[in-house]
């Protein structure tokens, strides 16, 4: 494993209970990468996420994590659940919970963790919301809070699972801008599963298409020239 690599998958098969969902996957995520994972529903995008996060073990092949990512230091932005929408918690409580993976059994967060949480709130422009109740926020603001929490958990890699689901177009655009900022200015590697091809291809450096007829990995323009991506070309150019 080279120095600038974060996750390396070699000849990986992933699946549940003996059934493979994804096979023969070779994938390298390096520092500062911006990878979009696209593909049809049920093609195994979420399974891949779970594999990258280390929640499921590969059935064959290896998924290797860089030492910096050990102990769960991956910022994950899962899809929101219904229970979360009416959850009574302040923004600061939610964001601080991202620091927990570095916390032993102490009842209080350290001042350093608090200031890190504040800094991440500021980075995402929601510092003034820190005492607001999570359930009173708009969808876009909630997504920012979860992103700030993910930043507390990790400094090198963010994994996002369909982050714009349920956001209005303006909020979605804001989110993409924020991600581009984090990627370019902070050097944060980003892996995003999405259905929103247009915006994804604009910002992503690499595209991974997971389809029933096989995988495609390459740059955004290569993707549009490929058999898997060709059908989206007209739509995007219009």
């Amino acid at each position: 494993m080279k120095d600038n690599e974060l996750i390396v998958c070699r000849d990986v098969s992933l699946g549940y209970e003996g059934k493979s969902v994804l096979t023969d996957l070779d994938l390298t995520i390096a520092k500062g990468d911006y990878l979009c994972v696209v593909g049809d529903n049920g093609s195994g995008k979420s399974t891949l996420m779970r594999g990258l996060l280390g929640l499921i073990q590969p059935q064959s092949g290896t998924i290797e994590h860089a030492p910096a990512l050990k102990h769960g230091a991956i910022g994950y932005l899962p899809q929101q659940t219904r229970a979360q929408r009416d959850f009574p918690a302040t923004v600061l409580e939610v964001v601080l919970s991202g620091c927990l993976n570095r916390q032993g059994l102490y009842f209080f967060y350290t001042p350093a963790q608090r200031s890190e949480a504040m800094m991440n709130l500021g980075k995402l422009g929601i510092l003034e919301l820190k005492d607001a109740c999570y359930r009173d926020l708009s969808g876009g603001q909630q997504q920012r809070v979860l992103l700030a929490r993910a930043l507390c958990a990790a400094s090198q890699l963010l994994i996002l699972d369909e982050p714009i689901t349920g956001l209005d177009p303006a909020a979605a655009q804001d989110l993409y801008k924020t991600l581009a900022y984090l990627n370019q200015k902070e050097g944060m590697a980003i892996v995003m599963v999405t259905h929103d091809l247009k915006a994804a291809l604009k910002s992503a450096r690499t595209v991974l298409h997971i389809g029933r007829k096989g995988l495609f990995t390459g740059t955004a323009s290569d993707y549009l020239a490929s058999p898997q991506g060709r059908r989206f070309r007209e739509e995007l150019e219009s």
Partner: protein
Amino acid sequence: MNILQMFSYPFMQRALIAGVLVSLCAALLGVPLVLKRYSMIGDGLSHVSFGALAIAVALGVTPLYFSIPVVILAAFFLLRMASHPHWNSDAAIAAVSASALAIGILVISRTTGMTTDVDNYMFGSVLAMTKGDVALSVILSVTVLTLYLLFYHQIFAVTFDESFSRATGLKVDACNTLLAILTALTIVLGMRMMGAMLISSLVIFPALTAMRLFKSFRGVILCAAVTSVVCFCVGLTISFGFSTPVGATVVAADLTVFLAACLLAALRRK
């Protein structure tokens, strides 16, 4: 009759000590359970606890020693079902709780018959607490409170977002298991006094009340704890004054406070 006189009775002192501790634990555990949509688990466990008590009496063993392990096992099982993607957890919990109740009633009808004892298990009795029960309640409640404080942030994180917590390396399953064990203990302890039919409301009501009034998780937890203890004390006093069953009176107090909180929340929204 004044309040001082009321607590000069040893059985009332025992009821007060055990009741306050159990309501405190129930309220604390209730918040994550309600937020995780696990409210029915409390109900299911109380019915399992009733079945276990009935069997313990038939076998002639000390009820608590028998029912605590059984209910903890049931808690594991119900939690597994609730998080299993292919099972209809709602229906499964309903089935388990009805079956446990049925087994309990069958055992009782073949052994002691429907006596006042059985009535006490179902609907609770202030006289049910012996000295040993109180001692056990104190030990277990202190354990519950300590573990809860120690794992407070983990419990928050896992309740708020299981997938994130799992991804960042928190021990989600251990945390859920801890929650299940603590809930099982609290329910077994509380059901002697509150009754199998009513104990789950002690878990659910304070959390619901607090969620109407507070915006932060810590606020909700503290408010639930205070509400629960106050409602228990008021319920106990009224039940003594008017000779009503404790469990039902406490639940009525909880309901009143809950309705008041709903009203307050509605007024504030205007």
